[in-house]
């Protein structure tokens, strides 16, 4: 069960010839796969391609009808390996993941796949997570295409172009016996647009046929001497075949006048940005007319030498708009032109920045600088492009820069991971600071305030592995954190198995929240949900013990901060050698609320007795020291300015979004904070007995309160 239901989007997958699809880019790709007669789809979730996985997971009936096999792969490596089905059979397959992290993990399988080549179309759809909002290292996926000699599509960021790229990609793959990567940037994945759909196609050759009539060809296996032949085949046969296909089918596009002194070559994904910049410079309009010729590389690799040469020939200069580094395409352009002795000047990273996202302002500045160097007349007396420079230098805005607080992502309201890190903070207060390795997942938010826990992150499921050097005699033990997602992705063998085998004397905390939560709440092996299509409820504790860990502790309630603290202290001070694993399990609150809240509201409306728990702060007891916040960071636990003249600092306050997870109370107990927290149990639809007991209590308590208040000598309020 993913974070949101895609029941409505599934309907879009059923559209037929001539119907108009309106929706998100990544869902358009999903529809395009079905239109292309894909036989199997696999992948690993992660922004920005999670929705492709999620919608297919909800679309069983559509897939069954078409005979399409869909799999939630255990990792990107598993997904890429799945493409082996297209090696010997004329079967189309597609896999998808976030990149470049996904392609890093998948590269072993991709390299092997690329060596032997494919018979059926093999498409690798990568969601390029670069620039603003990215959660990963800033690198390019481009060199993976270069090193393995597979082709890289980078379509213009509109739905018709992206859908066409999927269809072209399969054909290109088959025509050149080469896997094809389709790169879609994060905003293009989430772009809302429209395209005219085609009916879905049943695969011509089914997986069942293949399974019942197996084929093999030793020449396709990566073993010498075939592997030597593969390399030659890539260069001598597959590459020319690809070039021929790309040229004949005009996959790259030309816009604007045929003759001009200058031109722009752009990655397909940057076409819209280039057009907007030209529009700002008065050289294009919003409907696609342009005074500057643009050669759009919908195929980012390989380059088509003849097309490049023809575009550059006769021009004084061309500008390459290529985001990221190194500037692989720009370097290749120079090689192509030098080999043919074409003297057109190639600009690129000289006027555009080498590193960082190509925002509209950056692209406009770069194109303007290029035109000033090589076609000043084109700029004429155009008005200056819009910018905000005047605003940004205003003293009042400069003051604002010091005022607006940073707002990085963090743990949600009621997150079950919060108490784990609160406990870690308390243990460190006792035993001093420790070497702590982080991992990939929501739990990495712990490295930010208020927890400030975790020094490194080396990759998904690699947290404990990244502590392995610290397996030496010392007065403190290393701590590593790993999530349930990372644990199953590859952490069980690479991190936990590694620690067992090497007798690693550290502490491993497995943060188990029942989902792959950071990527959208997809099920994984240890999910507690019953998923008819998948095998869930495989306990992490069993896996950890099975792989040989002797010291294992488990809680099914992470909110028990005292237990967490004591257990962590035990793990750090235990005399036992070998890895000490604490599995801390509680359901992701975001997903739990999605599940529980509608049930709760239904019960309340239905007149059933339900008890709702919330937390509160007695503001007259709170002294405004904010110690509770430094052990929580919950969005729901905030501060409010008080009108009490005897209090200088804001007091703690809990807002209406509190889900009553219990962390506040447990932390205040474990850390011996102030007694201002209380839990309110609100009984909806109380029974007659409830009401009777409440009336008795109210009578007694009310009597006592009135008695004391009558005797109290105070100034009237």
């Amino acid at each position, binding site marked *: 069960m993913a974070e949101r239901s895609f029941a409505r989007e599934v309907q879009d997958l059923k559209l037929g010839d001539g119907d108009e699809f309106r929706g998100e880019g990544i869902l358009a790709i999903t529809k395009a796969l079905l239109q292309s007669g894909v036989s199997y789809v696999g992948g690993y979730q992660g922004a920005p391609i999670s929705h492709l996985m999620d919608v297919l997971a909800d679309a069983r009936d559509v897939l069954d009808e078409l005979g399409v096999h869909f799999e939630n792969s255990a990792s990107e490596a598993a997904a890429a390996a799945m493409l082996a089905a297209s090696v010997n059979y004329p079967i189309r397959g597609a896999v998808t993941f976030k990149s470049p992290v996904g392609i890093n993990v998948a590269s072993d399988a991709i390299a092997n796949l690329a060596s032997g080549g494919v018979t059926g179309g093999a498409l690798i759809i990568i969601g390029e997570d670069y620039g603003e909002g990215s959660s990963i290292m800033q690198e390019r996926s481009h060199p993976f295409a270069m090193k393995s000699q597979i082709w890289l599509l980078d379509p213009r960021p509109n739905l018709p172009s992206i859908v066409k790229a999927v269809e072209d990609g399969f054909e290109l793959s088959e025509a050149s016996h080469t896997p094809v990567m389709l790169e879609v940037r994060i905003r293009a994945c989430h772009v809302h647009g429209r395209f005219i759909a085609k009916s879905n196609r049943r695969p011509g050759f089914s997986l069942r046929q293949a399974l019942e009539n197996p084929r093999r060809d030793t020449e396709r296996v990566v073993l010498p001497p075939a592997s030597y032949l593969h390399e030659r085949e890539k260069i001598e046969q597959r590459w020319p075949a690809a070039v021929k296909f790309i040229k004949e089918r005009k996959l790259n596009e030309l816009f604007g006048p045929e003759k001009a002194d200058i031109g722009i070559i752009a990655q397909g994904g940057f076409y819209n*940005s280039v057009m907007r910049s030209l529009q700002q410079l008065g050289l294009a309009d919003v409907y696609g007319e342009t*005074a500057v010729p643009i050669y759009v590389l919908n195929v980012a690799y390989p380059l088509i030498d003849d097309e490049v040469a023809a575009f550059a020939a006769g021009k004084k200069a061309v500008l390459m708009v290529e985001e990221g580094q190194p500037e692989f395409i720009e370097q290749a352009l120079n090689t192509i032109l030098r080999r043919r002795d074409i003297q057109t000047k190639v600009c690129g990273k000289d006027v555009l920045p080498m590193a960082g996202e190509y925002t509209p302002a950056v692209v406009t500045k770069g194109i303007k600088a290029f035109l000033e160097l090589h076609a000043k007349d084109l700029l004429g007396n155009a008005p200056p492009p819009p910018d905000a420079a005047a*605003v940004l230098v205003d003293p009042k*805005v400069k003051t*604002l820069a010091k005022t*607006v607080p940073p707002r990085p992502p963090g743990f949600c309201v009621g997150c079950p991971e919060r108490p784990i890190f609160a406990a870690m903070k308390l243990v460190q207060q006792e035993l001093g600071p420790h070497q702590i390795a982080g991992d990939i997942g929501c739990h990495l938010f712990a490295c930010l305030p208020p927890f400030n826990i975790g020094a490194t992150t080396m990759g998904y499921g690699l947290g404990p592995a990244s502590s392995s050097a610290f397996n030496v005699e010392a007065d403190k033990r290393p701590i590593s954190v790993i999530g349930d997602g990372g644990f199953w992705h590859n952490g069980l063998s690479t991190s936990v198995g590694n620690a067992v085998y090497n007798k690693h004397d550290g502490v491993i905390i497995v943060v188990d929240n029942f989902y792959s939560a950071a990527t959208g709440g997809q099920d994984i092996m240890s999910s507690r949900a019953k998923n008819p299509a998948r095998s869930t409820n495989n306990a992490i504790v069993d896996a950890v013990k099975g792989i040989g860990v002797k010291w294992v502790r488990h809680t099914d309630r992470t909110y028990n901060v005292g237990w967490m603290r004591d257990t962590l202290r035990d793990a750090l001070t235990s005399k036992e050698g070998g890895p000490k694993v604490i599995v801390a399990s509680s359901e992701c609150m975001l997903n739990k609320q999605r599940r529980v809240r509608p049930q709760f509201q239904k019960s309340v409306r239905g007149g059933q007795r339900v008890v709702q728990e919330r937390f509160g702060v007695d503001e007259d007891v709170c002294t405004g020291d904010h110690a509770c*916040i430094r052990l929580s960071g919950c969005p729901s636990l905030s501060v409010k300015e008080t009108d009490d003249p005897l209090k200088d*600092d804001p007091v703690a306050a809990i807002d209406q979004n509190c889900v009553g997870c219990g962390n506040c109370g447990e932390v205040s107990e474990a850390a*011996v904070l102030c007694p201002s927290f209380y839990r309110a149990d609100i009984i909806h639809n109380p029974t007659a007995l409830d009401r009777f007991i409440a009336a008795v209590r109210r009578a007694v308590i009310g009597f006592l309160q009135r008695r*004391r208040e009558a005797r109290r000598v105070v100034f009237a309020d």
Partner: protein
Amino acid sequence: MNDQSGTGARRGFTTERPICVAILAMGGQGGGVLADWIVALAEAQGWHAQTTSVPGVAQRTGATLYYLEMLPPKEGRAPILSLMPAQGEVDVVLAAELMEAGRSILRGLVTPDRTTLIASTHRLFATAEKEKPGNAIADPSVVVEAAGVAAKRVIGFDMEALANASHSHISACLFGTLAASKTLPFPRDAFEAVIKAGGRGVEPNLNAFRAAYEQAGQPATAKPAVKRPGKRFAPLPAAAGRADLDRLLVRIREFPAPLHDMLFAGVKRLTDFQDPAYAAEYLDRIGTLHALDRDNGGAAKSYALAAAAAKYLAVAMAYDDVIRVADLKTRTSRFERVQRDNAVGDGQIVYTTEYMHPRLEEAAGTMPAPLGRFMEAHPRLFGVLFRKSRRVRSGTIRWFLVLYGLAALKPIRRSTLRHRREMAHIDKWLALAQASIAANYDVAVEIVNARRLIKGYSDTHARGESKFDRVIGAAPQLAARADGADWMRRLRDAALLDEGGIALDGALKTVSTL
């Protein structure tokens, strides 16, 4: 569809440009819903609309941006729309929180030639604002000032309050304000039709939309008031109807008028905390300080020493002991506040559970001093009794009686160990201020003000006290300097910056080199 005059027109290009809208929200605020509504609105009018976002993990409570462009097709050709906002090109910015409006200005999305800035003025505090031991809440007026410079037009008001009143979400209020702003060339009915077509929560959303539409029309929204709440001082009454209280009022009036408000606040608190006699002791101490203040030229300084002492001595004397907490937790007013804060309705029942963790220290502190000292001297003997924390169900008769009984210990408070210690601490603190006043009046005032650092319970309290000790420890050295009070103030501010006192240590190091 503003025309963009320039060379484009001369080349025969069309001059239309899309309407550009940016939405700044935090994950979970419904920015995506709002973006979808605007797309549906534009598409229903036959326009092309494009929206993009970068959700990913930023969705988890972080600042996020949604960006839309819209334009009608021309001669069957779809417009080419940008996936990212360009500085200086955004027509409307919708900010779901005040500091996010500030962020939009810093990102260059708001420019005076073009941008209508629509913002909710409520605050959701960031961790950086909440976690500091002092008051780190960002000044909201800075955003309003900058918006005045950056935006062509501002429409701002508290949309969260409006959304809550309609049992809806802030997105519906932003949508209503967008409609009222007339920045999109679509009629109000078309906006409402989109909400109706949404199918879920239609009535609450429409109510919020309409309420926001109305409020957006009011001129005050162009320069929204974002004043921070001040302190509430009760006016000094002529009489309180009891001889002992009236005597206190008479004594307050013997002080200079500027001190009255704070003295009355202190007297009120201490009468409530203990009894009128205790408040009278407070006035005795203030009286001594005030006399000293006057003798050292305090009149020229608005009796700053007495004023500071009026506040911090009241805080110090109304220390938070078990008796006090039990008293506050059992009051009618507290029961009523719990009902109110949790919006407990008529047909519902609410019970509270208190998280108490009395340690040996607190228990011994509540005992008569000799007994308390004996207990502290034998932690092994008594410690076992106080190892566990208690969840006190204060709505049940049994637990209420326990708290009620503890609060009833008030008459013996003055003999408790805790009281002795608090009084000794106060004596030492004020003695230092009194000793310093002749050498440096302002430093003496800052010694009194340093009491702000002592707050919280257990470890937090101990850390605060240690910071307090370190700050006033620098007073003898600083009293010799003309700018000594400035340094004292800097030390206090530094102490409020972080929990561990790292900034304070740095500041003390600087002071030691003076």
